[in-house]
């Protein structure tokens, strides 16, 4: 404790600065938060949907995983069911491909119509390699979209399909 006595003027100055500071902070904080809000918000892309597929049970053979979630469009709420072809690659990483053909949007099947080790589209005989790469000479012009994947409590989570850029 200093021996210098605090003068009335000093005391008032300190208190006013302190209280004023709190008030200013109280006013500024919400403003700053509002300004930052659009940056902090999680985009729809960051949304993951949990599937019923256990990650441990995945093999190198693509398996069909169906998952559904509720989607709200203005006044219209609906259950959307989506499908993914999921497998583990040589490195043991989980790969989830969208089954929507890049030609006109049919659903592709793994080894459909006896096409070994390929994805087959029954509509116009489109073919894709296991990686999702389109096979030249068939109608599709782009590789299959890929789902971002995540693991939660041992279950697979899938995000929003993104276009692949493999050559």
């Amino acid at each position, binding site marked *: 404790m200093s021996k210098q006595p605090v003068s009335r003027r000093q005391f008032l100055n300190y208190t006013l600065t302190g209280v004023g500071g709190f008030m200013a902070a109280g006013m500024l904080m919400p403003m700053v938060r509002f300004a930052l809000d659009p940056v902090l918000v999680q985009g729809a892309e960051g949304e993951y949907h949990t599937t019923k597929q256990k990650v441990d049970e995945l093999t190198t053979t693509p398996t069909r995983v169906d998952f*559904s979630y509720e989607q709200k469009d203005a006044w219209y709420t609906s*259950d959307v*069911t989506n499908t993914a072809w999921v497998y583990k690659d040589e490195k043991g990483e989980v790969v989830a491909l969208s089954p929507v*053909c890049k*030609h*006109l*949007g*049919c*659903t592709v099947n793994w080894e459909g*119509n006896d096409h070994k080790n390929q994805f087959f*589209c*029954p*509509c*116009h005989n489109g073919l894709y390699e296991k990686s999702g790469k389109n096979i030249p000479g068939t*109608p599709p012009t782009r590789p299959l979209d890929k789902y971002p994947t995540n693991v939660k409590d041992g279950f697979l989570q899938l995000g929003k399909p993104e276009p692949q850029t493999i050559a």
Partner: protein
Amino acid sequence: MNWNGKDIESFQQQKEYIDTLLMPLAPVSFENDMKEVASQYEFIQLLTMLLEKQFKGRMLLVPPFSYIRKQTEEEKLTALNRWADEVDKAGFKHKFFFTSDSSWKLAEEKINGSLIWVPSVPLEHMEDSYKYSLIEEQAKQFVNIIVHKWQQNLS
């Protein structure tokens, strides 16, 4: 392809690839069998929607052909074939008519197109997840029929 602005736009651009038309045949009645026909329609609607999803790039799902159930066979048949002719003119090679109304089954050979008659399952008291797996099982069989029909025409 669905019957909406966006899908029809891509249909018009990719016409040569979309050669199959899918049309539900839906009876309507306001008498004692009202619930029965409504339930049939629910089933057929889910089934055709799923098939459209599977074969989006080659198939156009059009609004259902609806008719009064009491109408005579003659009337219904003439009206449907009038539709079918129009569809032929539009350049479709395959026409699939899905229905749960067994009266069509008796007139099958007079219909210009492939009739697929599915006995409907009452879905109203079913749990959603069970409902979808049931429809999916059904749809799988029709997937094979449709693919088979397409391949027949190739050879």
